[in-house]
Each structure stands twice: as C-alpha cells, then as structure tokens.
C-alpha cells in the first residue's frame, strides 16, 4: 500500500517524521539489502561476530568441551601478571611492528615514486620485481638457504672466503641474528598491496598540476613531491598506512616458517604465536580469546593513532 502512494504521488520529506521517511526509503530500496545480504551475512559471521565473541569469551574458561565459566578478568590478570612469555611476546610484537610498519611504508612510497619516473614498459617490469616477493607464496623460505647454517650457505661461504669468520654461523638458530634476519625477510615480502596503491596513486596525479607548480616556483622533484604529489595522493597514503600497519602485525607465519615454533629462547615469539599456542594447541579458548582481544586492540589502536596523524598532514 505504501509502495503505491510512492509511485502515484511523490511523498514529500517534510510531511514525514525522520523514522517514517527512513522506513519509506528502506522499502523503496529493498533490492539493495538483498544485494548486500550474501556478503554481509558472511562478513558478520566470520569477522564481526568473532571479534565480539572473543571479547565475551575472554572473560570465561572456555575449552571447547565443558560449558564456559565466567571468571571476570582472571584471564587478563594471568596474562599480565603470571605469563612472562606473553609479556615478552608483547614486547617482540611491538618492536617488530614499529620497525616493519614504518620502514615498509616508506620503502613502498619511495620506490613507487622512483618507479613512476620510469618509462611505462620498464615501469611494469620494475613493479613486478618489487611486488613479486609479496605474492610468491612461501618463496621467503629461500632465505633459509641463503643464510643456511652450514658452509654451503651463500652468506656463510662469502664471509668465510673474505676472512670475516672462521666457522659457519647458525643464522636462524642464533638469538643474536634471528630478530634482524626475520625483520629483513618480513620487509622483503612487505611491498604488497600498499605498494601497488602508491604506484597507482602516482599515476593518476593530474599532470597539469606540475606545470602550474613549475610556474609557481617549484624548483626540484622533492619540492614537487612534497607540495603537489603527496597532498593529492592523501587518500592513497591513508589506505597504504592502514594496510602497512595491519600487515606489520601479521608476519607470524613467516617467522614460524623461518625459525620454527617455538623460536630459540622465545626471541621472536610474538602475540600471534602465543595465540596459536593457546588456541590451536592447548585449546584454552578463553585464555586465547583474551590474547586475541589484546591483539585486536593493539592493531586498531595503532591504526586509529596513525590515521589521526595522517589526517592532520597538510591542514
């Protein structure tokens, strides 16, 4: 019935209360809800609800077998007061993210900027070279060959031939070397989606802006980058930052593949590993949920902070 009134005589917005108006609009666009339904049903089931559920479970003793007991903040108290390895994992995750996040962001940005100076054919080729490690599956395992612990490893043999060392170094077992090595490998695989976003962003900057800038007295390419290119690329810079930050918390699988689990002396034990340990192996789901909740807050907190800072750039 409502439907008919709409088609016969237009309903004026001021005749209706806000709620009624919304209801009319919703009915009119029924099909839109049908269109988003498949995606968002799945999205809520596998992304939104899990986040909320893990907050709830983090206050319980759920172990997949017995009915969960509600224990308030006991999981969190245990995490922060009784679990030394967890505190270590927070520290490691934090250092890891603070290095890989900004460095991969700046590397992506500058390499994309440099690549943009190249001719199209060469540009496509160089883009592929930098992007390939991030899509090529577990190709990072080749680093264990380069830094293999015996004399047949390329790096060991070079260092031995040059006389820097006498016996091979066990790179991926020595706690002195693991952390920096893992960071290098993580950075090597990190020129991914945000890098492509920047490549594309540089290409769509309006060329006439550069000519106008030159008239206004821009002298060299750094000024051009700072005063023209970056301000116009702000949307890409924002997205790139979010992707880089989220990514910097997600290198757990790379670390496990390189040094195994648990790592020697837990030297590269991150929150992801701790989560895997309690959730995947010990089935202490309540405790693992508390870890997941903390990880979630770290990621969202870091993103909120950085996007807030980026929004201020140029204002």
């Amino acid at each position, binding site marked *: 019935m409502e439907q008919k009134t709409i088609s016969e005589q237009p309903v004026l917005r001021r005749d209706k209360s806000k709620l009624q108006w919304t209801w009319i609009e919703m009915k009119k666009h029924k099909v839109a809800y049908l269109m988003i339904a498949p995606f968002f049903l799945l999205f809520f089931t596998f992304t939104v609800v899990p986040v909320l559920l893990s907050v709830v479970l983090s206050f319980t003793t759920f172990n997949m077998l017995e009915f969960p007991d509600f224990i308030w903040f006991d999981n969190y108290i245990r995490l922060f007061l009784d679990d030394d390895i967890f505190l270590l994992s927070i520290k490691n995750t934090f250092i890891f993210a603070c290095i890989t996040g900004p460095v991969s962001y700046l590397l992506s940005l500058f390499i994309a900027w440099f690549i943009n100076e190249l001719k199209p054919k060469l540009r496509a080729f160089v883009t592929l070279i930098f992007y390939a490690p991030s899509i090529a599956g577990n*190709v990072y395992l080749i680093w264990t060959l380069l830094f293999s612990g015996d004399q*047949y490893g390329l790096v060991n043999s070079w260092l031995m031939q040059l006389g820097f060392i006498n016996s091979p170094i066990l790179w991926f077992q020595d706690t002195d070397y693991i952390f920096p090595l893992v960071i290098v490998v993580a950075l090597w695989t990190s020129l991914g989606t945000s890098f492509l976003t920047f490549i594309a962003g540089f290409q*769509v900057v309006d060329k006439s802006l550069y000519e106008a800038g030159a008239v206004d007295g821009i002298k060299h390419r750094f000024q051009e980058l700072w005063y023209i290119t970056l301000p116009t690329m702000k949307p890409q810079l924002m997205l790139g930052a979010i992707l880089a930050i989220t990514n910097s918390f997600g290198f757990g699988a790379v670390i496990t593949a390189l040094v195994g689990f648990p790592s020697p002396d837990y030297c590269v034990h991150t929150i992801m590993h701790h989560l895997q340990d309690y959730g995947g192996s010990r089935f202490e789901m309540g405790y693992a949920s508390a870890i997941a909740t903390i990880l979630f807050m770290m990621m969202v907190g870091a993103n909120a902070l950085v996007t807030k800072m980026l929004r201020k750039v140029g204002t």
Partner: protein
Amino acid sequence: MAKTLTRAQKKGDKPKRLNRSAGGDAGIFFFLALFGVIMIFPMVYAISQSLKPLDELWRFPPRVFVENPTAKNYTDLFRMLGDAWVPFSRYIFNTVFISVIGTAGNVLFSSLAAYALAKIAFPGRKFFFKIVVYSLMFNSTVTGITNFITMSIFGMIDTYWAIIVPAWCTTYGLYLMKQFMETSVSDPVLESARLEGASEMKIFWKIAMPMVKPAWVTLIIFAFNGLWNSGSSTYIYSEELKTFNYAISQVVSAGIARAGASAASTVVTMIVPIIVFIITQSNVIETMSTSGMKD
C-alpha cells in the same frame, strides 16, 4: 581526488620533464638498481638452485649461478609427489576446486554488495561501508580462534568449505570494488536505465559489471593468490583434502638428497602467482588507482 586513468596517462606521455636533473635521475636509477637486485636475488637463487645437479648443490664454495643446468630436480619432485599415498591428481583437484569456487563467490558477492553500497542510496549504506573500513584495521589472526569454534558448530571443519566460505567475504575485495564502482560507473547511465524500468539486478549485471572489468580482474587475482597460497590450514587435517601447495611443501621437507627438489618446489609455487600478475598488471594498477581512502 583519485581519478581513473585517461588514455594519455596510461601511455605515460611526458612531453616536458619539469624539475628533473640528470644527477637526480642517476641517483634514482642507482637506488632502484640496488634495491631491485636485493629483491630479485633470492628468487634468482631459488631458480638457479632448482636447476643444479647434486654435486653442484653441495660444492664448496657454493656458486650463485648453475653451471650444468638439469631438470632432474623437477622430475624428482613430481616423482615424489606421484609416490605419495594420496594420488597427485587429488591435490590438483583440491586446489582447482577451492580456488575456482572461492574466487567465483568472492567476486560475485563483493560486486553485488559493492554495487549497492556505491550506487544505491539506501539508508545504512554509510554504516555498512564504515564497518568494512574498520575491519581493514585488523587481520584474520584476531578472528581465528572464534572462527574455529563457529566452524566446528557448522560442521565445516575438515571440509573444503572451511577455506572456501571465509574467502567469499574478504573485506579488501569489497572495499576495492566499491571504490572503483563509485568512480567508474557513471550515474547518468544508471539513471536512464532506471527510468526505462530496468531492475537493479539487471542494471548491475548488464551495465555496471561490464564497466568495472579491471576491478573484477583484480579481485580474481587477489582471491586466487590468497587461495593458491593457502597451503596448509588449521581447519583441514585430512590428507586427501589438502592442496597442491601443501603437498609440494611437505614432500620435500627434509633430507640432503631432496635439497634440489625443495628448490624446485619453491619455484613451482612462486611461478604461478607471478605469471598471473604479469598478465593482469595493467588491470590491477587501474583498479588500485581508485582505491584511496577519502573522508
């Protein structure tokens, strides 16, 4: 404001080179060359290792490049795969099945939702898009535990669906598609189609989708890469449900005699996503050009 590429920009016409010095060009060239070598070296080394005969693999001092290339490591690799108790063809079938169904659902569901979010002014569209943007701020590690519980309730553990169904709703896919639709599908065309009485579904399928080909090509690539690289999953433990990628990484797990085959397996797994990207690069870059986060 991001815009789609114009024809001239695609060709990269640069009539004049403003504000550029020879010294700066040299510096950039040097920087790119240096980092390019660092990036490509491990991959070149993997290829070289995979072509080395046994005596070259265990020679001291080791050499970067192969002297007498042989395909033996590859034949060894596939012979070992053939000896596994699950037939090799089964792994291939698993990979193809998971990739095809996962990718198809991903592209279809994301495009449908993206079209509605970008082009239909329904109440709540801002809210729905906002939660998608927020969900870009954390990764699947956070939801892993609860998803395991959810999936065991639905009986999805140890079935193909444990991998396929979550792949249907990747937030980044929806985000990209929505941004691209917003700039690339022109509103007047949609309006005139609506006036002629075409249903939204029809407009979506006949008008919008053909206009966003670069975006769904990109979505296909991202979804496919994700699924291809999903070697082993915590949700699947039956050997006969595992993927090619998993099989290939297991078969060569250890042993001196298998060092060459191991390198060969790395090359096989890396070559597929790289070739796919080479073919589709221009589409992907065009899609990414609209991906910026405006607010």
